[in-house]
């Protein structure tokens, strides 16, 4: 585990324009592990993630979002979101180094090339995102996230647009490279939660529910019986009337 990866705690209630979104709820994200937040669309998973990220200016949140080391979260997070969020006007290398550009820092091209090599895309450094497949684009997004080298990673259904094979390959790659960081992964896919979560929570209209994750190291094999059973259990729980 990275020594600088803190645990996160969110406590509170969220409203948008007086309309209740979620809460009151208490969510703990343990340090250096992957926590999956599973739930159907529209229960406020993304809102919760954006509140933690500090980019939600619309939601009225009463409560607290804290790190176990009592330091501010700002500048310690990286985001991988729905879709790859690559800038179509920059080449792959430009996308991987966009963080430095946005902060006005010098771009470390050698390090960016090493990150691209880690996701197997070193030969595509000068291609535009439009020339890549969906899986390749998502790997560029992972390289960009690794380039930021932050202890806290927020994942917002990053693989939902990929086909089943590519999705599980990205899960493997992500789990491998984000090991030791504090990861909060929002997903609507029970299979993803069962494979990826060291801890799993279900967020529904009625609140937050802790689920015991299946045994085995993350990422759990796609055909592991206990993982598949857990996936079935998660799906039944999602389907249960609120």
């Amino acid at each position, binding site marked *: 585990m990275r020594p600088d990866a803190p645990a996160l705690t969110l406590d509170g209630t969220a409203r948008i324009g007086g309309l209740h979104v979620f809460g009151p709820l208490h969510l703990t994200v343990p340090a250096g592990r992957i926590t999956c937040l599973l739930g159907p669309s529209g229960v406020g998973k993304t809102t919760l993630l954006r509140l933690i*990220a500090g980019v939600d200016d619309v939601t009225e949140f009463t409560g607290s979002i804290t790190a176990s080391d009592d330091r501010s979260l700002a500048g310690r*997070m990286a985001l991988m*979101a729905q879709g790859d969020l690559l800038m179509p*006007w920059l080449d792959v290398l430009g996308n991987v180094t966009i*963080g430095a550009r946005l*902060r*006005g820092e010098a771009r470390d091209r050698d390090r960016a090339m090493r990150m691209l090599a880690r996701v197997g895309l070193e030969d595509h450094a000068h291609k535009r995102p439009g020339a890549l497949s969906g899986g390749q684009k998502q790997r560029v997004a992972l390289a960009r996230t690794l380039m930021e080298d932050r202890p806290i990673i927020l994942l917002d259904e990053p693989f939902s647009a990929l086909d089943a094979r590519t999705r599980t390959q990205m899960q493997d790659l992500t789990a491998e490279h984000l090991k030791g960081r504090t990861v909060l992964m929002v997903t609507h896919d029970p299979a993803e939660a069962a494979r990826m979560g060291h801890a799993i929570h279900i967020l529904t209209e009625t609140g937050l529910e802790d689920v015991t994750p299946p045994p085995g190291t993350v990422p759990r094999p796609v055909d592991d019986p206990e993982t598949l059973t857990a996936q079935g259990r998660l799906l039944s729980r999602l389907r249960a009337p609120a």
Partner: protein
Amino acid sequence: MSRLITITTSTALALALWQALVVLAALPPFILPGPARVAETLWASRALILEHAGITAAEVLIGLALGAILGGLSAIGLAASPLARRLIRPMMVFSQAIPVFALAPILTLWLGYGLWSKVAMALLIIYFPVTSAFFDALMRTPQHWLDLGRIMGANGPRLMWHIRVPAALPGFASGLRLAAVYAPIGAIIGEWVGASKGLGYLMLLANGRAKIDLMFAALIVLAVFTLLLHMSVDRACRRWLDGTAAG
């Protein structure tokens, strides 16, 4: 090749209709001259027409360049500052309620009979479409990109320069395409109100002296110029977007 055939056929059809109208309605040349006569005048007066066309082209191109720069900067300023939006946008909308034609005499009074009153007219007429197309695109940056930029620690100006502006360039390009069609209108209005050179001036002069064939020749040169300008701006925008932005 098929495109060339289409254009040739369509031009021939238009000329045939024009000639048919002249013949069937038995119109005298001082009301509507036929295409052959206009072509003859166009060739005979080519030096005169070209000289005036050069003046109009200069007015349009300078107006277009200034309009693109001013419109681009205004859109960025408005998008960057909520205060500017509250104070200046109502003014801009109000200014659009004033017919630009009505301003032409005042511009001539202020800037004289020369080139600059026409440049100002072209600029006025394209400023709003350029600004508003670019501004709308700047205000529509996908939220996810803005979130990503903020989490990465970008401040407002860098977010603007590295994400919002490149993402909005297609909008700016559509503004410029419109401007390429509007700018010649502005220059011609300016020339009608007061000028001693330019295609607009030549058309008024020819009309006054019942040289309708010369007027039509000037009009056709103006239309061809506007078409070519629109095509080149469109092509330049495409190449530029392929190179830099989300085309």
